[in-house]
């Protein structure tokens, strides 16, 4: 018994020793080019080989029977095939590997869109780019100023896109509306974004023809994606010439909590940087932000973002009419809460939902007059994605915004201007990708406003076709409605929504290191608000008879590879825009439009100094303005705008802590940029309308910041 057993064992082992099989062959790609370095092996054994420089492999195995022969290679799909090792001593197999679908190779619907993301590959910007663009001064919206399609409007600070006004750009956070994304502004002073760019892991900036998911924006949308669950505990403090900042992040297994706050005062900075404004109390700001993230079951993520912001400033403002200084005092407080819950419901269904609340209080004193404005917003949104098959995705959802506005004016008597609007919207959109080369998206959006008693229905479409491995051509268009600005609605709630139509065509080339994009567009505006005089109080002084048009070409080039340790991008926009709105007497180029806009952003890392250096040069050709001393409308032009800004970041050790020292210098060359002129409404004794130029609050500006990781 025992011996028989042993013999069998012996026989089996020797048999296997003597039945070695040799496998040979060649690994190629689909164009028959050899792939050297590919791994070819038999599953369930260590037996295998790496292909040589001609793609050939050869190895021996003692396995027998039917086995799986596998091959793998970076950038290619894994391959497997059955081989029968019993029939012959040598087996020859030629293997063809298919390229894996790189994100860069796939067509994406992106006409009109600039996306900054740290998660996706095929994007133009990283979040870090936004935080370190010198001319942006750390402001998200400022960084968009270096992208094509955006006008330089130095006295405003908002994002003016393709012949559209600042209010035509709407800001969202994780898909939810942000009712007051900018700080309150004094006259002729630029406002800034309220949020630090470091809070976001991505930003979608669309300069036109965006998805039906977004509404109530005539020109542009910005959707900021907040950071997901943090996995690193960290704390830092920053000391700046403009104040103090601190933040801390705590992590649990399925949740994270981040707190940050800052106290900013321009008092010191205004002494260092000569001001062209007569501040009687330098701007003072306090912010507190909380971010909580909780993973719920396998696929659900709850995000809470809450922020409180309060600011104040006083200044003397020259009233050109009577040539006396007016004492202006501005106080502003904002609370914004944003809750979202996103989850995968099943293999085919995804849920996106959110609840947002915003409260904004502004108190403006002008000598003895006072204007108090309170704005409240509540938004509830729910949306679903349904994956009909691998090629088709259906998105639909609904959105309710309750907005109430209340302005109290104490100026030669007491006035109150309140209104409330309930905006109910719904959208549906289908994205269909019949192949890796073609993508189309068609959607509709319906909106109903209780205040305006109107319902609108608009189409949106977008399509893209891959013209090469790295290039694609895209087309997009649609119609867009937006309710008139609050400053008009408060007087004239009978107004209709303003309307815009966009058509965009884009060609883009993108590889890992370089992006080239050229985009042409046509825009038409109708139903724009016209009034007889600024601040007219009679509802009948307002009408929707205004109109406008814009066309232009935007060019963008970014290159990270040609120069060592250097990354640069160039944006150029040409625009031809005209409007007849507000109190314009005829169709004319509006004051915020410059025909040519150019930005150069140049970033270089100097390893030997552990230093990042960034330089931006911005140019905008002259802007028109109306000089009542001469005949005709919009009869004068400002000088061209020029700016050179620099930022330097040194990495250093500060008492054994990791730290970074930032120096930001704006308008190095000290260009005297004039954005326009304020004119007196009546002529003086000599019959001349007096004027004063609108300038930046500073000529040059230097800000120093030391950030220490604790």
């Amino acid at each position, binding site marked *: 018994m025992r011996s028989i057993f042993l013999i069998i064992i012996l026989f089996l082992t020797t048999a296997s020793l003597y039945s070695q099989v040799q496998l040979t062959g060649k690994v190629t790609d689909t164009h028959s080019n050899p792939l050297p370095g590919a791994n070819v092996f038999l599953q369930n054994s260590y037996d295998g080989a790496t292909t040589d420089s001609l793609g050939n492999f050869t190895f021996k195995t003692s396995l027998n029977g039917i086995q799986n022969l596998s091959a793998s290679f970076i950038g290619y799909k894994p391959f497997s095939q059955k081989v029968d090792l019993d029939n012959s001593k040598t087996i020859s197999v030629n293997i063809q590997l298919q390229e894996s679908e790189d994100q860069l190779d796939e067509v994406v619907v992106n006409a009109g869109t600039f996306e900054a993301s740290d998660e996706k590959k095929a994007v133009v910007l990283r979040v870090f780019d936004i935080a370190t663009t010198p001319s942006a001064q750390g402001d998200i919206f400022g960084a968009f100023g270096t992208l094509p399609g955006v006008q330089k409007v130095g006295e405003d600070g908002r994002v003016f896109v393709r012949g559209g006004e600042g209010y035509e750009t709407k800001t969202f956070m994780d898909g939810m509306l942000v009712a007051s994304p900018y700080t309150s502004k004094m006259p002729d002073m630029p406002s800034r974004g309220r949020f630090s760019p470091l809070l976001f892991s991505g930003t979608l900036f669309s300069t036109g023809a965006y998805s039906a998911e977004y509404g109530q924006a005539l020109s542009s949308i910005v959707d900021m994606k907040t950071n997901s669950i943090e996995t690193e505990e960290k704390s830092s403090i920053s000391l700046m010439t403009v104040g103090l900042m601190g933040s801390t992040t705590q992590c649990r297994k399925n949740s994270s909590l981040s707190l940050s706050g800052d106290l900013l005062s321009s008092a010191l900075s205004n002494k260092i940087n000569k001001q062209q404004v007569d501040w009687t109390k330098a701007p003072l700001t306090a912010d507190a932000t909380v971010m909580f993230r909780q993973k719920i079951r396998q696929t659900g993520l709850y995000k809470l973002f809450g922020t409180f912001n309060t600011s104040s400033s006083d200044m003397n403002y020259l009233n050109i009419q009577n040539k006396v200084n007016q004492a202006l005092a501005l106080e502003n407080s904002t609370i914004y809460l944003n809750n979202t819950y996103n989850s995968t419901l099943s293999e085919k269904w995804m849920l996106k939902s959110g609840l947002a609340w915003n409260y904004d209080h502004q108190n403006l004193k002008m000598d003895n007059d006072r204007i108090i404005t309170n704005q409240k917003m509540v938004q509830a949104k729910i949306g679903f994605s349904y994956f009909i098959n691998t090629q088709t995705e259906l998105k639909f959802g609904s959105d309710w915004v309750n907005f109430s506005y209340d302005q109290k004016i104490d100026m030669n008597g007491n006035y109150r201007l309140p209104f409330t609007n309930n905006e109910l919207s719904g959208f549906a959109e289908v994205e269909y990708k019949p192949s890796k080369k073609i993508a189309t998206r068609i959607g509709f959006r319906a909106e109903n406003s209780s205040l305006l008693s109107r319902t609108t229905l608009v189409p949106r479409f977008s399509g893209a076709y891959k013209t090469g491995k790295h290039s694609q051509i895209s087309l997009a268009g649609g119609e867009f409605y937006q309710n008139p600005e609050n400053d008009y609605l408060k007087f004239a709630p009978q107004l209709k929504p303003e309307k815009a139509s966009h058509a965009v065509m884009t060609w883009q080339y993108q590889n890992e290191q370089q992006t080239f994009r050229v985009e042409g567009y046509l825009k038409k505006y109708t139903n724009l608000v016209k009034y007889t005089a600024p601040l007219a109080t009679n509802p009948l002084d307002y009408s929707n008879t205004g109109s406008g048009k814009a066309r232009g070409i935007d060019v963008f080039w970014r290159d990270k590879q040609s120069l060592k340790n250097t990354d640069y991008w160039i944006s150029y926009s040409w625009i031809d825009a005209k409007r007849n709105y507000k109190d314009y007497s005829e169709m004319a180029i509006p004051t915020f439009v410059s025909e040519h806009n150019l930005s150069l952003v140049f970033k270089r890392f100097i390893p030997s*100094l552990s230093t990042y250096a960034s330089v931006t040069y911005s140019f905008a050709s002259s802007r028109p303005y109306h000089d009542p001393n001469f005949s005709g409308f919009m009869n004068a032009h400002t000088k061209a705008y020029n700016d050179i800004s620099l930022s330097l970041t040194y990495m250093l050790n500060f008492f054994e802590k990791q730290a970074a020292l930032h120096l930001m210098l704006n308008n190095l060359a000290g260009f005297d940029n004039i954005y326009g002129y304020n004119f007196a409404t009546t002529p003086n004794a000599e019959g001349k309308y007096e004027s004063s130029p609108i300038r930046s609050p500073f000529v040059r500006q230097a800000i120093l910041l030391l950030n220490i990781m604790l």
Partner: protein
Amino acid sequence: MKKSVFILVLLLLSGITFANEAYQNAMKQAIDKLFHSQTIQEYVDVANQFERISTIEKKEWLPLYYASFSYIMISFKGTDNAKKDQYLDQAQKYLDQAMAIEPNESELFMLQGFLYPSRINIDPINRGMALMGKMNAALDKALELNPDNPRVYYLRATMTANMPEAFGGGAAKALPLYQKAAEKFELFKPKSEIHPNWGKELNTNDLQKIQK
């Protein structure tokens, strides 16, 4: 009958030890090859070997650790940035798989801390700040799991040596770190012949260079 059962059990057991021995031998042979590799081709070849071992030894983190290590070495040898990123993607993939098998292994966090600087070097402008923090977090975690891991000390010393003096780096600052690493290497005993045991020579060389 009893006897035959006994023999069967014995045979089975020897089969198991045989398999384990095969694993040990395959690993030893591949590790030896890894530390004698010079060219991209040689590294790819040995990385492939580790990959093959890992597809069978699904509960072992070591083959994946060495596969990942090989790809980090390949990225050092590469010239094209896009390619380098691809190699590091591959290294990260193996490392993630290894982490899933052994989530609390100091050597894996050390390797993660070794991978980030390679990523930073490809695009320091855009990656430096974000990844520097992640690298430090990974090295901190590696030390927390094993305060005597000499490779963590070595990596910290190298990072310091490569940083300019003005920013807390430089040879003078790095010297005590290299010496500390040398102490740790002296005391270090790998868990087995196939566990990570590299870096001592590199540390000695760097230390000598600095002392000159």
